[in-house]
């Protein structure tokens, strides 16, 4: 009996192998490189998936974040795109309107949908169709250095921007190389760093009439707040030379009192500066109690021209199981996008993460606008002009808003 089973297995195996040869099922997956752990994680997942599906050959293509959009553009333009790709959800509308992303609803059942928090899945839904699955999520909160605050005689982190404007110079006064508020002024998310205050003052990126909200009172006030922090020496000098990583580095060294960034800073501190005594709190509120955090997700999409949609879906189904999600989320230091993962002790008992999750109801996502990257570019340029003191606040923001309105009109 046993021999017979073995023989049968051998036969099936041989059959399976011939079918593999006949139809080599290869699957190409483009993933963004979040950290040194991203590549190995996806390779491992691909291997595990191949073991479960012997006729599949999964190729992982790891792309640095800065050039992801460029690669996708050239890939699609050359008709050589992968089957699946991670993209910034803020780009999704471009992919959908050009018919490049495939709708996923036909594959998804209620059970699958239930694996996600709705707040993270909804940005990928357009015109009632789901075009992407949230693969990475993060929100922003304020990190503060407890020692520096204490030395400056401040009890507890500031709750409003007014309090922050008061506290920051006191911390800066502690030493030449100490700055109260760490401010980002360069490269990716320079615009976002401004929106924290902009939202607190009640601003909206796109007004109800469909125009830019930069040229409103909220825009002027937020810019005024930041500019006066810079002028008062309450930030690190030369903000336009600092990108997000640079400011985080200052914070890790204990040279910055407060800064706003994403959960991954916690895991970096745990590894690189374990002695730093810091806390995480909500982003300061505006005069009317408004506050906003930036919610950002990256989604994984399936390409409409994929030849292997069934297999691609199986791979998605595989990596969105709780086990693989937990491994990814913990390794990269993101927020859990799945309730089951969030309930795991590693996440549920993490005090820093709780602060971020608590902010989610206030989270704002990048608006669904074609050409979002260009709008972000215009906004960042205008802010740099203001930070450098090369332009008055109001006219600079008005000009930027006018430029943005032209894009919004299209």
């Amino acid at each position, binding site marked *: 009996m046993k021999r017979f089973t073995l023989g049968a297995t051998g036969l099936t195996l041989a059959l399976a192998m011939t079918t593999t040869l006949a139809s080599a099922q290869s699957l190409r997956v483009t993933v963004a490189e979040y950290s040194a752990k991203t590549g190995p994680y996806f390779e491992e997942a691909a291997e595990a998936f191949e073991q479960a599906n012997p006729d599949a050959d999964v190729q992982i293509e790891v792309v640095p974040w800065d050039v992801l959009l460029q690669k996708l553009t050239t890939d699609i*333009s050359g008709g050589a795109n992968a089957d699946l790709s991670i993209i910034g959800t803020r780009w999704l509308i471009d992919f959908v309107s050009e018919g490049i992303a495939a709708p996923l609803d036909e594959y998804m059942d209620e059970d699958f949908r239930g694996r996600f928090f709705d707040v993270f899945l909804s940005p990928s839904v357009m015109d009632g169709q789901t075009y992407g699955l949230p693969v990475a999520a993060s929100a922003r909160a304020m990190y503060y250095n407890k020692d520096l605050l204490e030395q400056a005689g401040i009890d507890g982190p500031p709750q409003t921007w007014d309090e922050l404007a008061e506290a920051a110079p006191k911390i800066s006064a502690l030493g030449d190389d100490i700055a109260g508020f760490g401010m980002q002024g360069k490269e990716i998310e320079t615009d976002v760093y401004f929106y924290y205050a902009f939202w607190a003052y009640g601003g909206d990126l796109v007004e109800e009439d469909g125009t830019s909200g930069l040229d409103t009172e909220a825009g002027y006030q937020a810019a005024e707040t930041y500019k006066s922090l810079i002028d008062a020496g309450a930030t690190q000098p030369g903000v336009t030379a600092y990108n997000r990583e640079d400011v985080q580095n200052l914070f890790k060294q204990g040279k910055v009192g407060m800064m706003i960034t994403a959960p991954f800073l916690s895991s970096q501190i745990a590894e690189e500066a374990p002695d730093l005594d810091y806390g995480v709190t909500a982003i300061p509120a505006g005069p009317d109690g408004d506050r906003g955090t930036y919610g950002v997700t990256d989604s994984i999409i399936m390409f409409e021209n994929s030849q292997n949609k069934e297999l691609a879906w199986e791979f998605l189904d595989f990596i969105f199981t709780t086990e693989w999600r937990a491994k990814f989320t913990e390794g990269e230091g993101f927020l859990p996008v799945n309730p089951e993962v969030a309930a795991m002790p590693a996440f549920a008992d993490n005090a820093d993460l709780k602060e971020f999750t608590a902010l989610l109801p206030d989270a704002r996502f990048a608006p669904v606008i074609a050409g979002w990257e260009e709008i972000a570019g215009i906004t960042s340029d205008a802010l740099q002009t203001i930070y450098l003191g090369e332009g008055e606040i109001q006219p600079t923001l008005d000009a930027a808003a006018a430029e943005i309105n032209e894009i919004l009109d299209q």
Partner: protein
Amino acid sequence: MQRTAPLAPYALVMPGFLLAAFIVLWPLYQLGVISTSEVNRFGQLRGFAGLENYVAVFTDPDFIGALWRTLIWTFGIVFGALAVSFPVAMILHEDFYGRGVARVIVMLPWAVSITMTAIVWRWALNGESGMLNSGLKNLNIIDTNIQWLAQAATAFPVQIMIGILVTVPFTVTIFLGGLSSISGDLYEAARLEGSSPLQTFRKITFPLMRPFVNIAVVLNTIYVFNSFPIIWATTQGGPANSTDILVTYLYKLGFRFGKLGEASALSLMMFALLLAFTILYVYLASREVRE
């Protein structure tokens, strides 16, 4: 001249010509097509657009700024490198102790990929963690940290300086080659006639070096005009586009903002600009020689 087989030269030239033409001309043709088409953000053609893309580039105020800076960038580096390389080559041509070591040091930047050089400089120029500030502080040259990359007024000159630094090795090598090709007899004759070193330089070295200078200018102009990594790795053209040159602007336009039609138009305009410069320079240089 060999005239045995009239087709022989064509056969010899063909493999190289075909390969170069295929890799260079075909993409050029593609650019022509894309630049006159309506293109979506993923480079898929959506109909004919005439000269719209060209007009869009021309009317963009950032284009004029970038064009102007490209001229400063190119001339700054090409002539900066010339000004540094000429005396350096003259010295390295002399016989002195440690000349071999000196030559190797001067050539060293060549051994590093420009991308890596730019990344290293970016790290060295970091305001708080950068070793340039800390080095200058240790030497008491400055007492507060300079935020080199925070504004164009310091960032752009530093970028040009880096550009000069990576251009010097090639230029020095050409000049050294040139100096070694000048016959020693000429100098001997000049010495016997009692001419001063300055006269020797003016009468012999400089005129004989002319063709080498011309070559260095043309080749360096082509390389520097198209040079991307130094600016991209240090400032990405920022803050507020104030260090953008045409190449970085092209990259942003095409790959960040997804305006591939305009990017293709700009590519062709840059090519035309470079072509015009080269023809002009070669013409001027050959006219001078004839005079």
